[in-house]
């Protein structure tokens, strides 16, 4: 499913990478431990996290993730946003919790 469709359905706010929302989302992964996400996320996953610092961009880039959703009203750090724009990683934000985003995404993709 296209990331744009998910963003619309879950009412996610786009912080960067608007031009990349045509990407196909294969599934989701929830994690705040970067090594866990490195080890277990899959290509095309939408990564749901509360980490907002710039190191999330390299992880998403290395694992070819479709994008990053920051939960519970978290905003990306300025340098994270800069890096994500440069690397072509969409960052979206929501007031929802990880549980709620994962649940809605799972329903949407099933």
């Amino acid at each position, binding site marked *: 499913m296209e990331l744009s469709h998910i963003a619309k359905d879950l009412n996610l706010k786009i912080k960067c990478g608007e031009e990349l929302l045509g990407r196909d989302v294969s599934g989701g992964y929830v994690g705040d*431990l*970067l*090594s866990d996400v*490195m080890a277990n996320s899959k290509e095309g996953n939408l990564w749901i996290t509360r980490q907002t610092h710039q190191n999330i*961009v390299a*992880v998403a*880039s290395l694992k070819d993730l479709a994008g990053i959703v920051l939960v519970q009203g978290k905003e990306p750090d300025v340098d994270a946003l800069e890096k994500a724009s440069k690397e072509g990683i969409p960052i979206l934000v929501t007031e929802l919790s990880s549980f709620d985003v994962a649940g809605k995404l799972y329903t949407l993709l099933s």
Partner: protein
Amino acid sequence: MSFNYEQSFTIQGGNFTDAGVVSVFIKRTLQKMGIPSEILRRVAIATYESEINIISYARIGIIYIRVTPENIIINIDDEGPGIENIELAMRAGYSTADEKIREMGFGAGMGIPNIINCSDDFKLTSEVSKGTHLRILININTN
């Protein structure tokens, strides 16, 4: 297909700003060479975790990568505190990371186990208060 490439990268300890830059560069370089995606995934994890280890613990480190038609060899040498108990360091969940590192989502004791899982051969040696050496071998299966 014939792969031939080698390069060294210097990583500064404590520099979380550039964490992942070398791994991303290596991944893109190998991708352009036509290395299969499953191999790319393993190299990306191994180099990323090595990079994070140097940044988290060492003063300075060098990542050397060599790609041949048969395999990929990654050597990591750092100058730093070294590892007192290698057996413990290789155990999943064990970490000596401080609070600052953990807050960023690192230091969960998964780094070295992740590297081992991605390696066909793995060697870790260390000298306390001198540094740590890692040798990672990943076979390329092109048939």
